[in-house]
């Protein structure tokens, strides 16, 4: 049986072209393994070999990501690989991002198995862990031997079409997908062992990390609010009467975008709430109680703000996080950015 073909991606540093001063080098292709690629040889044995190495400078890749990916993909495709490996990148941030990005691109474009490796705190890990298998490595090249061992083992599994085990079995960074496995010890013993470690203040690994409360760093303040274009958004379900977009009264799967051109306040004859989660009479009596268009118009006149954005966005939310709401916001935020909206006032009931 002929050996499977593997193409390997490394940066300028591991290709021994140079350090930061050479990070601008453009993609190039070299036959055979190079640098860390040499270490994969013995592990692959008769099953596979690195037939070529693609190299790119970290700065070049990160600053010209689309071009870099396109150039590299062309080279990789020409080498007809059965599998693609990038890195390991350890804790090198831009290298990690490059490894993740090119691996994802190869997986999507060429449809072959891919893997990379990096330290769990590498920014590339967070960005690409759910897209590709990222073997968890130490934070520096001191961990090269260990990384190569784990990466080659996973690579061989992929080449042999064997099922990939849980992250703890195949040493990859968890992808946010729960995978079952049989442990050597039964659950009760694992619990006792974990408790003993916790009691001794020794490190232990929980089998299910609690879902982290997702946080976003606050954006800087608006420099000059008096000239700012501000948009109104609500989860209080205010819509034109008749609810033209049929926004559901709870856990909505849609949102509406409504024109405020020439609207000085939200008349109860023209607007109402679609929200089913509270007594609607107050909002219907005066929708400005939920979406304060009247006050924004007064602020415009008084030059307390630059302007009110022409459209307001409305959906029905219920306080706590709703997945749909997240998707809506991602979508209309693009428009807001394009239209140079500088701030948003979001009202909730």
């Amino acid at each position: 049986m002929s050996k499977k073909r593997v193409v390997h991606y490394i940066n300028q540093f591991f290709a021994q072209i140079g350090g930061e001063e050479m990070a601008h080098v453009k993609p190039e292709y070299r036959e055979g393994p190079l640098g860390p690629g040499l270490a994969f040889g013995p592990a692959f044995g008769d099953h596979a070999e690195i037939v070529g190495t693609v190299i790119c400078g970290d700065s070049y890749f990160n600053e010209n990501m689309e071009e870099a990916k396109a150039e590299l993909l062309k080279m990789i495709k020409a080498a007809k690989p059965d599998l693609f490996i990038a890195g390991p990148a350890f804790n090198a941030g831009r290298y990690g991002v490059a490894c993740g990005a090119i691996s994802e691109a190869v997986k999507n474009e060429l449809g072959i198995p891919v893997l990379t490796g990096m330290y769990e705190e590498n920014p590339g890990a967070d960005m690409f862990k759910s897209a590709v298998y990222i073997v968890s490595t130490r934070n520096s090249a001191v961990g090269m031997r260990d990384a190569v061992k784990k990466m080659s083992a996973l690579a061989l599994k992929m080449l042999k079409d064997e099922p990939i085990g849980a992250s703890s079995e195949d040493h990859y960074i968890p992808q946010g997908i729960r995978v079952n496995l049989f442990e050597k010890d039964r659950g009760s013993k694992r619990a006792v062992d974990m408790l003993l470690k916790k009691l001794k203040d020794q490190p232990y690994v929980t089998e299910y990390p609690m879902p982290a409360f997702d946080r976003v760093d606050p954006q800087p303040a608006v420099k000059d609010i008096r000239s700012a274009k501000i948009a109104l958004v609500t989860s209080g379900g205010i819509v034109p009467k008749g609810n033209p977009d049929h926004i559901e009264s709870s856990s909505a799967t849609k949102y509406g975008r409504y024109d405020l051109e020439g609207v000085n306040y939200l008349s109860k004859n023209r607007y109402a709430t679609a929200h089913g989660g509270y007594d609607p009479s107050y909002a219907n009596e005066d929708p400005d109680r939920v979406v304060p268009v009247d006050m924004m118009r007064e602020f415009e006149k008084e030059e307390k703000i630059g302007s009110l954005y022409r459209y307001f966005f409305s959906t029905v939310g219920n306080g706590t996080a709703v997945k749909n709401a997240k998707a809506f916001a991602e979508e209309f935020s693009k428009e807001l950015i394009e239209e140079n909206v500088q701030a948003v006032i979001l009202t909730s009931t």
Partner: protein
Amino acid sequence: MVKEIERAGIPVVHICTVTPISQTVGANRIVPAIAIPHPLGDPSLPLEEEKAVRRRIMNAALKALSTEISEQTVFDVD
């Protein structure tokens, strides 16, 4: 929604009645509102007074947007 808007790069102020929920969902600039069915109004007041209340809340919102913060902050309505 509030997080995605902020993440997209636009500062956002969240006016809502139940501020702890706002904190839970990850809003950074928070202004307390009047009540769930009428966050920016108070039907028990005459119209003019009600508008004055709305103005105060909106003033607080503008102030929140103009204030640099490093963590979740609930702004008072004057």
